[in-house]
């Protein structure tokens, strides 16, 4: 256990276990079939649990999976069996809250698919190749939403309210199109 904490995958599935967006960082599942089998198993195993108020946790195929649901969206973060459970939970919470911010509290499958670009960017800002980049939902959402701001404003000076404003702006735009 002297290695850096690492994430094996992040999954966002719908209420039937179908993919909304997934990202794998480990070679444990080399083919798409292997990935789908894993997702299906994880979904079936966790489906009946109530992970709506607090994040839940399960062990599966030598992995630890933390998960949380909202509406028809199921969020999962997977790590190795020796990983610190609380670190995984922090990543999950970061992802979960950032998606909530970006979808302006309207987190459901329809909204997520309509803003899939934001979700994908969000995944890209949380973990890079298995290494945790950022876990603070406000910062993550800020980075994703800053796309629509002017090129001039440096990221570090952006406040949370600005981040939210830009997220909101992005949303209105996607609603109008």
């Amino acid at each position, binding site marked *: *256990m*002297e*290695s*850096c*904490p690492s994430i094996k995958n992040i999954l966002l599935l719908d209420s039937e276990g179908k*993919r909304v*967006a*997934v990202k794998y960082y480990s070679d444990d599942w080399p083919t*798409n079939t292997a*990935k*789908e089998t894993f997702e299906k198993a994880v979904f079936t195993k966790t489906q009946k*649990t*109530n992970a709506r108020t*607090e*994040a*839940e*946790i*399960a*062990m599966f195929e030598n992995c630890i999976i*933390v998960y949380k649901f909202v509406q028809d969206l199921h969020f999962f973060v997977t790590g190795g069996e020796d990983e*610190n*459970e*609380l*670190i*995984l*939970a*922090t990543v999950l919470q970061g992802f979960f809250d950032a998606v909530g911010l970006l979808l302006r509290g309207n987190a459901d*499958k*329809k909204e997520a*698919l*309509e803003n*899939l*670009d934001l979700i*994908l*960017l969000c995944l*890209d800002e949380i973990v*890079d*190749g298995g*290494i*945790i*980049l*950022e*876990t603070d939902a406000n910062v993550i959402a800020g*980075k994703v939403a*800053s*796309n*629509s*701001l002017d*090129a*001039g404003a*440096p*990221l*570090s000076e952006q406040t949370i309210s600005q981040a939210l404003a830009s997220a909101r702006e992005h949303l209105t735009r996607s609603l109008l*199109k």
Partner: protein
Amino acid sequence: MAQPLVKKDDDRDDEAEYSPFLGIEKGAVLQEARVFNDPQLDPRRCSQVITKLLYLLNQGESFTKVEATEVFFAVTKLFQSRDIGLRRMVYLMIKELSPSADEVIIVTSSLMKDMNSKTDMYRANAIRVLCRITDGTLLTQIERYLKQAIVDKNPVVASAALVSGIHLLQTNPEIVKRWSNEVQEAVQSRAALVQFHALALLHQIRQNDRLAVSKLVTSLTRGTVRSPLAQCLLIRYTSQVIRESGSTQTGDRPFYDFLEGCLRHKAEMVIFEAARAITELNGVTSRELTPAITVLQLFLSSSKPVLRFAAVRTLNKVAMTHPMAVTNCNIDMESLISDQNRSIATLAITTLLKTGNESSVDRLMKQITNFMSDIADEFKIVVVEAIRSLCLKFPLKYRSLMNFLSNILREEGGFEYKKAIVDSIVILIRDIPDAKESGLLHLCEFIEDCEFTYLSTQILHFLGIEGPKTSDPSKYIRYIYNRVHLENATVRASAVSTLAKFGALVDSLKPRIFVLLRRCLFDSDDEVRDRATLYINTLGGDGSVVETDKDVKDFLFGSLDLPLVNLETSLKTYEPSEEPFDINSVPKEVKSQPLAEKKAPGKKPTGLGAPPAAPVSTVDAYEKLLSSIPEFANFGKLFKSSAPVELTEAETEYSVNAVKHIFDSNVVFQYNCTNTIPDQLLENVTVIVDSSEAEEFSEVLSKPVRSLPYDTPGQTFVAFEKPEGVPAVGKFSNMLKFIVKEVDPTTGETEDDGVEDEYQLEDLEVVAADYMLKVGVSNFRNAWESMGDDFERVDEYGLGPRESLAEAVSAVINLLGMQPCEGTEAVPNNSRSHTCLLSGVYIGNVRVLARISFGVDGPKDVAMKLAVRSEDEGVSDAIHEIVASG
């Protein structure tokens, strides 16, 4: 998109089925991607198309090589646009496409421009993309920028460079290692995550340099680390340093105070990481454990499932080695049995089963019964195993535990689960005599309705051994004979064997068994018929009650004391002839891995000095070799040959190793010599042995090698006489003596004149273990009991301070030279006590069994209790003498 095909779904639920990607199709999207080539780019449109492409990839669609290349080139056009949102999507797309080397060149300049842009978002992302797709040559070009980026004042840029560094370290370590100064500076960064990434990279750069890691940890544990993630890393590195320092002498452990301090950190992840690190320390004391257990106990009642899970999982591991330390948490654990999360509940139960005391067992079992019905098989197996060990701990409680096992045996379940239950019952029957009758009946009931052939045959075999010894064997007959009617051929054959065992052991049942066996003669399966015929004849076919003689019992119950592998090899080499196959000719020695192979990688490919592989490992080959030498013909049967002992250092002029062959009243040393000097020929090679330190031995003959050319191994032998059957020990010093002749390397001709020379070899010892054959037994307990305690000798020994328990166990095993049984040579990490079961055959063909209980006494002192049983009083004493003098 509203095609008629989709209509059916629309009717059902219009709202729920809506998706912006409904009916999306790869070909169409690839067509759409042409907008990337428009002279007037529409950023929003392009973003949408990229999103669609990413959606397809995310759903598991794949692009052909041609398609990927086309998309890639089209995407590179989008660098013209100044739209930030579009640029981000372009970065994502490039990473997903993972372009080939010649394609990378196309985007390199665009990305390098972005790396030096004024916009931090561009810089951070361009660094990540470029490092993801780059190769070594390109990396040297951008190295300068990356070094700058590491110490950039913008944390996002610095983190991007550091994380990329961590990835690149795998492929281009020599380049990344040049950045350590910058990385070191970044460790001091005020931004939390930069510190985390810098620390991770710095440690990976230095991970092979223990001293550097130790220094890093020392300086950081004194300073302040801002990010909880970085603090977790530091805790991991600290435990690594503690582990590697290894010196856990009495007194305070280095860095323990730091770990303990982290238990008061404000972030839960740090508290937990520290608590876990403490519980995993090597040889952790209960005083060190207490503060960690206390915080974990608090976590147990947290409202967050993740915290509860983490705490109970860690405590569960602690309970395996330090059950007493965890008992304080028992009340909190009990409330977790009803936890919504089944993983937490299972972990809580198994922990409780490990820590519980005798009085709480009944209450616990009641709670578990309710719980078992709604968990998956995998959890049930864990519970069953925990119950098995609990029962062995509290044998008086067998009644309620056995009842529990038989109840769950009746319920539905898969093979693995049922097997776990059956195994548990079998172990309990073996270890707790009172549980035998009820346990056997439970098993009988189970095979009445068992769908697993494997389990049925296992149980029938077990019934055959244990059933006849019970007070009323006849009640089992019905269950067994029912199998003959109702089951498949495998189970029927197994049932026939079991019946025969009852017949052999219980005289009063014999006539009835004969009746049953005769009925089996008309079975449809030949194996069943064959077995029935065989048993009717061996048991005395006339059906009268005759005294069953020892041979029959041996035949039915005697364990096959041959390693199956050896039997298989012997049968394969047996050629059908007049002479029947002799089972006594099968070697009994368990073959160990050839020693020579381990050393092989370090040697030159020519295999210099390595003795020929085949004769080294196999006992039969030695036997063949020795019997081919007439001088040794009258020594009798070879008892044992040792593994080769190296008498020279590796890479010396002459390489010699020796094998000790033990006979009843002789010992033969076989010296395998190899000449490693190309221009020399050795003649008349002998080994002069000085046996002055081995009083009971006297040299009888020495057999030289006539000629030893370069790189061709030759064997010289020296034989000794020793008192018959006595395990004499001693030390022998060896001198290699030979005549050297020069060889002309060009012509290969040898000069006529030689020079006499000597070469000092290392000493060779004959030790007690040389008189012991490694012969395993499959069921130690049965063997132990059937041996009886007539010649049992028990004594206790202190082994003094030892490096670890495992080291002490393996030292004793090596000293005795016996075969560890049932995997007891493996010592679990952190355990404070261990029982090792050994079996062997001592010179004179005397079976020996030993049961050794080790315990750690004080910080490092190991003590052991050795119980030896054998067929000869003298041998039991001899084993004790070996240990006492070892």
